[in-house]
């Protein structure tokens, strides 16, 4: 997996960490998904979803993972 794609996992986890501190886990996943939808280009979302599908996103936090599933 390339370093640049690995960066997407770090970014998603950072976002999830922030929203986790704001409230309940399902709200955190919802807000993480909305943030990614609002600020990430479709290509970035697609790349991370591809990584998840390929089993290459093990480092993704549960909330970030939940968020990405909402964006499928």
């Amino acid at each position: 997996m390339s370093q640049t794609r690995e960066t997407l996992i770090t970014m998603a986890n950072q976002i999830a960490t922030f929203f986790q501190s704001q409230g309940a886990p399902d709200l955190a996943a919802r807000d993480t998904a909305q943030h990614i939808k609002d600020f990430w280009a479709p290509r970035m979302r697609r790349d991370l979803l591809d990584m998840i599908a390929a089993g290459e996103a093990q480092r993704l936090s549960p909330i970030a993972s939940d968020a990405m599933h909402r964006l499928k």
Partner: protein
Amino acid sequence: MSLITEKDFGTPASVATETVTLTIDGQAVTVPAGASIMRAAGQMGTQIPKLCATDMLDAFGSCRLCLVEIEGRAGTPASCTTPVANGMVVATQTPKLAKLRKGVMELYISDHPLDCLTCAANGDCELQDMAGAVGLREVRYGYQGHNHLNAATDASNPYFTYDPAKCIVCSRCVRACEDVQGTFALTIAGRGFGSRVSPGQSELFLGSECVSCGACVQACPTATLTETKVIEIGQPEHSAITTCAYCGVGCTFKAEMRGEELVRMVPYKDGKANRGHSCVKGRFAWGYATHRERVLEPMIRASTDDPWTVVSWDEAISHTASEFRRIQAKYGKDSVGGITSSRCTNEETFLVQKLIRAAFHNNNVDTCARVCHSPTGYGLKTTFGASAGTQDFDSVEHCDVMLVMGANPTDAHPVFASRMKKRLRQGAKLIVIDPRRIDLVRSAHIRADHHLALKPGTNVAMLDAIAHVIVTEGLVNETYVRERCDLEDFQHWAAFVARPENSPEALEAVTGVAAQSVRAAARLYATGGNAAIYYGLGVTEHSQGSTTVMAIANLAMATGNIGRPGVGVNPLRGQNNVQGACDMGSFPHELSGYRHISDEGARNLFGADWGVTLDADPGLRIPNMLDAAIEGEFKGIYIQGEDILQSDPNTKHVAAGLAAMECVVVQDLFLNETANLAHVFLPGSTFLEKDGTFTNAERRIQRVRRVMSPRNGYADWEVTQMLARALGYPMDYQHPSQIMDEIARLTPSFAGVSYDRLDALGSIQWPCNETAPEGTPLMHMERFVRGLGRFVVTEYVPTDEKVGPRFPLLLTTGRILSQYNVGAQTRRTENAAWHEEDLLEIHPHDAEERGVKSGDWVKLASRAGETALRAKITDRVAPGVVYTTFHHPLTQANVITTDFSDWATNCPEYKVTAVQVSRGNGPVDWQISYAEKASRSRRIEATS
């Protein structure tokens, strides 16, 4: 056109609301109470002779020229120091006064060289004017006695000359240095006849504490302190009001010209941001505009290994368009994008994002604000509803407590820093939160009440600790919170910060700051009266940059410090038009006026106006573009006025991204570092060569006025327009005012802005619309833009960039007064006299452990890369922290910084990099090889 002259009323205006009526020379005049007789006379059009008085300074009463007679009072008091009173009857011109004034002038002139015809100030000399005004016809005393006529001139400063032979010791320069600039670099040395103006302890200007702001030159009524350019060129003959192109303060200047030659930039008293003051950059460092290294013809090349080939504008533009078309045909429409410039005008920035959205048909547009204040946009929009600071600069005059965090105003925003220092000298309290002991902590007549020298990367922990004190000690302004904020959010936040783990004691080990200091600072901020927060990139350029901005907003709301003069949240913007670049829709996710691209109504409004269908998804941000390039999916970029190779983090990663592209277009004044990896170079124009507007840190939209023809042939907006046409998208603006009309048509917060309104009002702070036709100096007065203020929980999350045995020190980066950003402009001026190279500041303990002495070459290494520079040993930085600037390409400080970035915005974490420092022998191999490559890349093929 003629020379714009500003009336000098002699003493500052009184701010009193009550008025006083008096009679001067038989005419009744009503003025504010507290005004001087001199000012009152000036208001009715009577100029009382004066030399030591000027309305930029408080009255001094030393020259004895402004004497008047007052009915019922003995003697001849000075009109500058005598306040008006009801019923006062004043005579400004009587035989007695005429005789006294003539005698005083005779004494001045008896020790002044009579070389008016060859004097640089001929035609612009108050002494000359006053000799005329008092009717001086002879000087009886001759030059036989002691005099100062052979005093040596000090020409050490590159921008102005000090000729003590012409000095009348009026102290205007000394007072300007104290009152206006606040540096206290000048004094009157000696006594009586031996008195003379002296920088420091009889030093030369260049070696003294003088910061070359020019206030002394501005204040001097004779040719004693004169701009070197005026000495070289002569007096200007016409001028135009324009806006400085350096920092986000946005100083207004008179560009004083002879023909198309700029003679000098003189700060404009009516400038709302600078109020007649300036700094060394805006006042003097404009020589880059005519520097020999400026590239004036377009150039192209097939490969970055090739030398440049000079081509016509037509060829350059059609080649660029054809390359972008080719790339999009081959790799898809999303394979190209562009970067707008925070140094260019609003109109130019608007046009570049329009080009990308309407002619590239995607939203891959970003701006250099990405790497500085993007967290400000996110954080303040989330909490307040508007992506901008809340106050105007005048607000500082009502401030009782300043909290300065992650900003170094005396270097990065020097003109506003002078206003801050003035207020501090008047008694306002100061809290500084910064790892470094910035100048504001301890300088002439300024002492911070609290300096919280926290460890880099712990801003959120510090603000949570302060909030903890405010909440648990009952210092919340409950009335304000109840009336203005979302109560549920507040309670959630208050419960969070009140947790024991957020107490100053619990966080002491994290921040490195004693709990008692944090508690004292928190109490001062919450209870000290009007409290304002001023912050800079030390807040935003962190992995928790957006969280920190929201934590700042929380503090301001909890203490009720939003919505009136003297308070507020004030981001000090870095570049001249960072605010404007953000306002103009430069971010990939939003259109001008901060409307999200997914907002169908906004998108359709723009789409209808532009005749295109806009993509509803956000585009790529700068770091995402580079990542995508390395992945092989992003192939072409149009970069206007930005040097990402030098300014963006992790230089090697940026270089890899650019190298992976097939068409990199750089539009700039010089062959900057990014141009080393470019295929097309389009010459840019300076702010002196075009019309437009900049928006400063207080949301103030100000005119930039063309005073000379573009040396490259076109203003930047014209180049973008040519490129759009070549791509098949019609743009037909005849003047930037038409672009502003379009901005106003499409952007609600700019609805009332036009060039006519700007000319009429001087400047306008957005929002400007039907409800605020003259703009909005202070925001969120009655209610927040979003309705109720929103408190956000701000949990401290340590950065992933950790120190360890290999990299035990933390590097933080910043700016220095004399240089600006990547130095492309200031390095090409005489400002190099103050800062020839980047230095590494290191604490004596860390230096001693490593055997490093001041001036030694040291190697600076991080996980991202290494470079070498000279060391400067100083206790400004704490043990464990090192600091450098990023102004010089030889150093390439950003080869050290990493890819870590803010969670919300991808703003890079410049301020925290784990590093090791060791003794070195000179530049490292990478620097040598980079310099060789850069030199090779700048080759230009000889034209036949």
